[in-house]
């Protein structure tokens, strides 16, 4: 059905591999960079996912508090 195979989609590895230096020199770098560069870079994906999750979480907490504020406001308006 789909004509494009995975290999055909991958235009990056060949074209840029010799120019990319993201993980080169990781051996001499600090512990954090060494850690992030290990295991086929899976920790980078984990980092991205955690950033998204934590930002959404902060947003959720903020909305929760804003609704609570509105509820309080309505309650005090009723009492007056």
């Amino acid at each position, binding site marked *: 059905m789909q004509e494009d195979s995975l290999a055909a989609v991958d235009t990056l590895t060949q074209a840029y591999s010799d120019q990319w230096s993201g993980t080169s020199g990781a051996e001499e770098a600090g512990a954090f960079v060494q850690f992030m560069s290990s295991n086929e870079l899976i920790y980078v994906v984990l980092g991205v996912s*955690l950033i998204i*999750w934590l930002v959404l979480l902060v947003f959720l907490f903020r909305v929760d508090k804003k609704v609570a504020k509105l509820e309080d406001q*309505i309650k005090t308006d009723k009492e007056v």
Partner: protein
Amino acid sequence: MKAWKYVVAVWMTIVITAGFLIHIPEIPILEQTARNIFFHVPMWMTMFTLFVISFWYSIKYLNEPADIFDVKASSAAAVGVTFGVCGLLTGSLWARFTWGSWWTFAEPKMNLAALALMIYVAYFVLRSAFDDRQKRAKLSAVYNIFAVTTIPFLLYVVPRQLTSLHPGADGNPAFSEITADVLRWILYPAFIGFIALGYWIYEIYVRYNKVKLEIENS
């Protein structure tokens, strides 16, 4: 803010992290995407839970027509549909790189899941058709009870009897001996975490709709 929400925040952070970090056995074709089970399947479990909540409050509304029951029923359905859309999108992406296609009409669970969501979209279309609040609440409660009864058939009974690429087809259990045992250690906590997260979002949405209702009434 209630304490359980902080528990959910920490719990989910651990589940996501552990989902990436645990060692999983080599599975052909799936490879590392086997980890998707921790995120894709809980979307559906959360959707089911929210639809059951929605169903419950629709029954309560028909028993006793109070606005709050309608607010709870429609809020739960809305959050449930949102999780269902997440399930469809994550499933589609996963399918592209394992089954080889974004969408296939040969896969019953995929198509019936889309159909189930459309039944719930129709619930909101129906709601938007009424200006009278009582009429809207009553008719959509009746429709919602019909809608929820289709869910077990569309997502469990029918796809399990057919040939399917999803696990659990042809009358087999979904979690059979071919599925790696270690996946359960994250999958079940992920169910709990995502359902709690869905309930949290639902709770906020109910409170928002309640405030809206009070402003409309005043």
